[in-house]
């Protein structure tokens, strides 16, 4: 494998990054367990929802600003909590979370979401 600063046959930046991405995707498909993939799909959904809300705000205007904020914070909060759940469930991280079982992680996830929902609904107006 050629080191980055050695002059080698011309590859171009884009092709380097393309191989990087394809390798990453391949690794992801093969080695991640299904449960984590489910959570990853959920994360993508949350992300898109947040992006679309932000897009609306930028394009059309911040008219009910409190509604925008509560929606956006809901997305951000949910994303963070889902990431926490993913980390805690991942069997590869078992050594870091000896006291926390996956069930316990899920219970925490639910409880935190309840609090988040309470705040969001209060603020949405």
């Amino acid at each position, binding site marked *: 494998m050629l080191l980055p600063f050695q002059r080698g046959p011309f590859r171009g930046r884009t092709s380097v990054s393309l191989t990087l991405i394809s390798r990453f995707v391949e690794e992801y498909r093969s080695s991640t367990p299904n449960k984590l993939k*489910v959570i990853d799909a959920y994360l*993508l*959904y949350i992300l898109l*929802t947040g992006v679309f809300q932000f897009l*609306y705000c930028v394009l059309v205007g911040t*008219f009910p600003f409190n509604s925008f904020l509560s929606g956006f914070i809901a997305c951000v909060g949910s994303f963070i909590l889902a990431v926490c759940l993913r980390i805690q469930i991942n069997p590869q991280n078992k050594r870091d979370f000896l006291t926390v*079982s996956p069930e*316990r992680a899920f219970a925490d996830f639910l409880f935190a979401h309840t609090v988040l929902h309470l705040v969001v609904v*209060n603020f949405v107006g």
Partner: protein
Amino acid sequence: MAHLCLFSLLVLSMVLETQALTPTHHLTTTDVARLQAVLSQPFTDLKSAYYSVVGLSKLGILVADADETCQFIKSNLDPSSVESLFYAAEASQALSGCEIPVSNDTRDLLLATVSEDSTASQIHQSVSALSSLGLPLASQEVVSALKARISKEDNVLTIILALQTASRLSQQAELGDILEEIEDLAARLDDLSGVYLQFEEGLETTALFVSAAYALSDHVDMEPPLKEDQVIQLVNSIFSKKSWDSLSEAFSVASAAESLSNNRFHVPVIVSAQGPAAISHSQPFLRLQVTDVLCQPLSSASVLVESASTSSSKSAILSQAPFTLRDEVFELNFMASQPASGYYQFSVAIAGDSRFVANHVELKVKVSTRVAINNMDLSVVDKDQSTGPKTTRVEYPTKAKAPFMADSHQNFAMAFQLVDETTGVELTPHQTFVRLHNQKTGQEVVFVAEPDSKNLYKFELDTTERKTEFDSISGTYALYLMMGDATLENPILWNVADVVLKFLDEEAPSTIQAKTLYTPKPEIQHLFREPEKKPPTVVSNAFTALVLSPFLLLLILWVKLGANISNFTLSPSTFLFHIGHAAMLGLMYVYWTHLNMFQTMKYLAIIGSLTFLAGNRMLAQKAVKRLEGK
């Protein structure tokens, strides 16, 4: 430093002493008539008969039907009561030819009452009755009884009765101690703001004190220890009330008035001007009434003007001029000294009797005059002074024949002189106004005419300068001269001329608006906060769909990944958990639409705890299953 203080205090006290008080309240002839009417009311019993008869005698009035009154007294007399005997004796003494029959028992009763054990009132009544009935009495016994009484009861009324009693005793008796009580009693009087001097017990007590003190002082021929200012203050207190609540109060005022007019030492003098103190050519005499407190004129007095000076300059016009007595009124022809119009300060002294108190009076006298207007010249002057002014002379009270024209290039001017009609001295009255009245619109503008250094009045109207006052309305204005002063007998309102004013027409308002202050003002429309502009509904709906679209993506991905619910354990806790969780989400929606935070927390607590317990159970089961499966 101490010497300086002492010296200034001495000077101050001397200055204060020279300014004597004069009575501010006194009885007028109507008040005396009213007092007489109160005392003349028909009497119902012996006590009211006593008050009426003796009171009227103090005012110098004899009762009309003496015989009838005498009969009344005799029939109402109760010989066994000291009080009844006192009233009868005193009343009969005031009536001429009325004799009360006296028996030995009566005499013994009266003599027995004179002792230390009787009250001061009883001693007074018995001594007065004995004295009026002409019966002998032992003065020294009375004196000792009185002294014992005073030492037992130290109140004001007791001492006053003691003074009255002592005045009926023989002059050989030792009345010195009782005489000293006058001074002690005078010290107990309350001084109210330097004007009034009275006992806190009231008017009647003060009046009785005055009559008792002077009665005793006259009896022993020793001047009472009352200063002149105190006497005047007592006069103010006693004669400030002009209607009396009871017969006894009226009686006490009548006896006080009598003692203040007739005693040997102090006679307060009341000086008042007859009518307003104003003099003019038609009324050149200043008339003064000089009376005692009962409104009886003091004909023996001689009234003198010590000095008469103008209020402003203090230079004396008159000095030591006597008043002449005519029909019980003192008069002085002040106009003979030819005073200029204005206010004068008179200092009048009343002499003739050493008993007179408050016999220096300060009076303010007004001298009025008639005013004449001389040399009224009206002219229209060109501003650039290209042509000479056209002057028209107008004589009061005629009006100028032709109207004067003044437009924006000209000024209208007026000059005149105000003089005293008789002396020809120039006058400057307080009010000299020039009024221009537009007869068509009713508008009027008033200016002040001011005198220059030579006392010549000038008024100039610059049409351009003053156009705001006129609202630039052209037209014919009637010109009036208004003049008035307190010392003028003939105030003047004179329509001098008509003035036609022409203003530049562009500035004139089209309609003449009456300057009304009290019409309703224009209504203020409140502007509510505009709601913010919302984007069109299409855009909102489109974006809502866009935001919800990732959910579809999620479902698709999950299906692709093979997410399923095959691990669903059919146990009650699972069901309960899921139902509880769904309920919590439902509660969130309801919170958004209907509830507030407190209600939500309440429901959440209930549902949440159920869900928690169920979920805990479920997850524990799952964990056990997972560990078993490993």
